[in-house]
């Protein structure tokens, strides 16, 4: 499947989760794309952990403001209904349970809802940035990622990489389907019709629970 098509499928599906009036933080990378697919019929406020709510679209070339960037240091804009604040307040919002959703990528995620997305020992140590607070504080945590990465399986029985947080993930959205983390394990609530259940299970190292009412991924 085309890489951009994969990203679009995932971002489009995540965007459907949001409801009018909600507050959402979108992580760097694929999660950022989710903003492009939020329905215009609802009012969703985006939080940027570097210090504001009401993040808008990227500015036109030549209209960038060096003092107005997103959490990835890229120029952005703010809606006229937005507000700026300092980093302590920004993380009071995040840690304090005021975010309805955080959408993040993952290196690994497991059937207990554990998440690993901030380091690969001896190789890559970018640091956790705001991810640990986001995952701990948000009401719902959605992992938006490609189902595998360069052939590596990322949905596991148990994460092997250092964790970002324990038992905090609620939902995983990949190009293959939508999975919910439950007490009993990972439930494949929606499946992309382009794949069979067997194909999804093959690249998932945790046992998928297939509900009777499994839906087609939109």
């Amino acid at each position, binding site marked *: 499947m085309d890489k951009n098509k994969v990203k679009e499928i995932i971002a489009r599906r995540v965007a459907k989760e949001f409801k009018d009036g909600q507050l959402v933080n979108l992580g760097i990378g694929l999660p950022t794309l989710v903003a492009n697919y939020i329905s215009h019929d609802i009012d969703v406020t985006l939080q940027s952990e570097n210090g504001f709510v009401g993040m808008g679209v990227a500015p036109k070339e030549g209209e960038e403001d060096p003092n107005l960037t997103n959490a990835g240091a890229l120029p952005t804009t703010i809606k006229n209904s937005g507000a700026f604040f300092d980093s*302590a307040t920004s993380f009071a919002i995040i*840690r304090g349970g005021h975010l309805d959703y955080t959408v993040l990528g993952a290196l690994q995620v497991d059937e207990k809802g554990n998440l690993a997305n901030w380091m690969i020992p001896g190789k890559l140590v970018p*640091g956790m940035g705001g991810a*640990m607070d986001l995952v701990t504080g948000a009401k719902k945590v959605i992992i938006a990622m490609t189902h595998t990465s360069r052939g590596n399986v990322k949905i596991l029985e148990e994460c092997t990489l250092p964790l970002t947080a324990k038992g905090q993930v609620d939902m995983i959205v990949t190009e293959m389907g939508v999975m919910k983390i439950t007490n009993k394990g990972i439930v494949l609530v929606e499946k992309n019709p382009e794949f069979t259940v067997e194909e999804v299970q093959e690249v998932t190292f945790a046992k998928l629970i297939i509900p009777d009412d499994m839906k087609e991924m939109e």
Partner: protein
Amino acid sequence: MKKLISLEEAAKLVKDDMTIMVGGFLGVGSPERILKELIKNNVKNLTLIANDTSFPGQDYGDLVVHKMVKKVIVSHIGTNRETGNQMHSKELEVVLVPQGTLAEQIRAYGAGLGAVITPTGLGTVVEEGKEILEVDGKRYIVEKPLRADIALIRASKADKNGNLIYDKSARNFNPIMAMAADIVIVEADEIVEVGELDPNFVMTPHIFVNYIVGDDK
């Protein structure tokens, strides 16, 4: 009135072995001109507390590049390969802290609180070696306050008494660092007369500021 000082005077206040806080988020809202001057002085063995280590070739990212730093306490180093390199070669000690914890640790020192009690990092390596406090049956990590000898911060406007206003997302860590250091030096984009800032909208009261560096024109 606060002492208006030159870039040279500001940079000279930072000495070997000091712990410094530097405002900014990936360089946005950091006191770039003071940092450029500081790099000329080639101060050594600094401990740097900041959100991140920015990018090589700019602001506090270059403090690492020029090997002026022995230890960083930050939430993210992924944008500065030099930090990673020096960490792997053991030239630089890197303490990674969740961003929200870092912000509260700085605020806690400024506010005279003994610790930050946070759920962030539970069940991860962040918890290792730290005390756990149980409150009403829930576990939290005890994180200690963070202070600095000097905070280098950036404001959009300063009045001559040191009242500050920040601009948009350039605010970030600047206001809390202004409360947590023995000496606070602000690099202001614009200096105005006392009375030009409405007291209702001042973001950092002058009482936290020791020195102001102006536009040096």
